[in-house]
């Protein structure tokens, strides 16, 4: 059967993206590709001092100038994409997977489990995210797994809350009641009946959370508590080269542009998703 697999893809449901959304998507894909193929396209080894001058200007040899030790910025930005995109993606996936799963369970089960979990995570929300990250990282020391877990922990309550609200909405729909009346088990209700119907908004939410995580990660790195030297994500690159600012060095500008381009394009993409994807709950 040639047509037996007709998934509800955006195109099939008649969704289309406008040009702002497309630009956003293009930039996101660009950075994703860079993050994947990074090690093979850096013009210079990232850790090596290749210029005798520090804070070198943009030149034929160094497209984005050099940093405070005379390292090639282009290479470091390319490798920085790995850390920024990679850590943020891992963290957001963990946060959303955990939050959505717990949210669906709480939303469908209700009762004391729901009340307790909701209260607890609500209170957790009150702790400023960056501060929480700082405290944990300062206490346990910074490493990439610690960063990922901390960032995921920060954004799990929000994802939980969002998914729970959606799940509660879907749970009241008749098709879930029909499945329940049929005698279906809890897992079927959650995975087959509810999850596919909250997927759209959850993915949009994941995008926004990704932006927040990139920002907090950059903030941590900017304060010296993120990715540790000699490795550097984009936030750390800004920190390393902040003195170059008054010298007019491009070293601090390009990492900043990299961060902004990624986060703005994710926002642009999410903002211009067709409303039917964003709020399917309606």
């Amino acid at each position, binding site marked *: 059967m040639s047509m037996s697999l007709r998934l509800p893809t955006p195109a099939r449901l008649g969704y289309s993206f406008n040009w702002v959304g497309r630009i956003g998507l293009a930039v996101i894909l660009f950075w994703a590709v860079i993050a994947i193929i990074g090690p093979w396209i850096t013009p210079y080894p990232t850790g090596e001092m290749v210029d005798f001058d520090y804070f070198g200007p943009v030149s034929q040899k160094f497209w984005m100038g050099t940093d405070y030790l005379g390292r090639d910025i282009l290479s470091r930005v390319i490798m920085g994409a790995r850390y920024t995109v990679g850590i943020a993606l891992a963290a957001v996936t963990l946060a959303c997977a955990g939050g959505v799963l717990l949210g669906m369970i709480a939303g469908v089960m209700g009762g004391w489990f729901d009340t307790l979990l909701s209260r607890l995570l609500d209170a957790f929300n009150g702790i400023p995210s960056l*501060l929480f990250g700082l405290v944990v990282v300062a206490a346990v020391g910074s490493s990439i797994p610690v960063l990922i877990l901390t960032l995921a922990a920060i954004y799990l309550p929000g994802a939980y809350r969002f998914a729970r609200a959606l799940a509660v909405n879907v749970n009241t729909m008749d098709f879930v009641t029909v499945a329940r009346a049929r005698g279906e088990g809890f897992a079927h209700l959650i995975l087959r009946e509810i999850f596919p119907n909250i997927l759209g908004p959850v993915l949009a939410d994941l995008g926004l959370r990704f932006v927040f995580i990139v920002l907090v990660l950059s903030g941590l790195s900017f304060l010296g508590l993120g990715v540790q030297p000699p490795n550097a994500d984009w936030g750390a690159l800004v920190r390393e080269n902040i003195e170059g600012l008054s010298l007019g060095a491009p070293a601090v500008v390009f990492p900043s542009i990299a961060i902004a381009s990624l986060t703005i394009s994710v926002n642009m993409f999410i903002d211009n998703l067709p409303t039917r994807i964003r709020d399917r709950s309606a």
Partner: protein
Amino acid sequence: MLRSATTWLLVGQRFGIAAITLVIVSFAVFFATELLPGDVAEILLGQAATPEAVAGLRTAMGLDEPAIWRFLSWLAGLASGDLGMSYVNNVSIADMLSGRLANSLRLAGIVTLVCVPVALFLGIASAMWRGSVLDRLVSMLTISVISVPEFMVATLAVLIFAVWLGWLPALSYGVDVDSWGAMLRAYAMPVITLSFVVAAQMIRMTRAAVIETINTPYVEMALLKGASRTRMVLRHALPNALGPIANAVALSLSYLVGGVIIVETVFNYPGVAKLMVDAVSTRDLPLIQSCAMIFCFSYLLLITIADMIAILSNPRLRR
């Protein structure tokens, strides 16, 4: 206006919930800080300390007692206003905190005064003229600001106002604040930075809340009565969007107490957030706990106030 007894019951209930949450939070905060690796006594005495000395100090500091007991006595202390003594320099936490907290609150207060009116105005206006040039401009600006790390906003502000224009000092503290002009200059940079960040969030959420109510049948009904756009939004949509807007403002403002660590660092501003980060590196548990409690308390307070505004503005909830 007359408020019935049930209204006050509802309001009291919200406060009750907030109080219970606060206790849960204090429990979580206390035991989370207990989990921090590293022993205070060892850190205080340095690596050369003998095990006997460490043990002696632990007993002296009361660290030998069971955790739950220490938690209860700490909680009792909190309730009576005694925040305990710093482990590190034996100063009362209350003394260490008061100056810093005043600084933080002052900054937060100024930002609130600047931000809230501007944000509400822009949020409502861009919802009212959705799709207009103003709306698109505001939208673009707010997306850019919330998409950009705070340190970049701060750095940009320094670059523009201190380096290029030379109007303002780059650092805010340490400058003598002896006149209104001097104070204005001292606070200008952190205030500008924070205002941008906080206002952007508030504008977006306000706009979304107002647009949601604009799409309701009763606002369409107002249109069909011949109401102007301003009347539709201000008289019909806005009163019903008050709850969500209050919530948005509360969320943004809660950020101002503890979330400003970047701004405090960049501008060398001595606030509570920085104090807490410093406390972590010295393992000063009582100080960490107190700071965390301050943040959670201010968050809960703001959220509860927003909740109450929502209740009082909705006749269905306050019957």
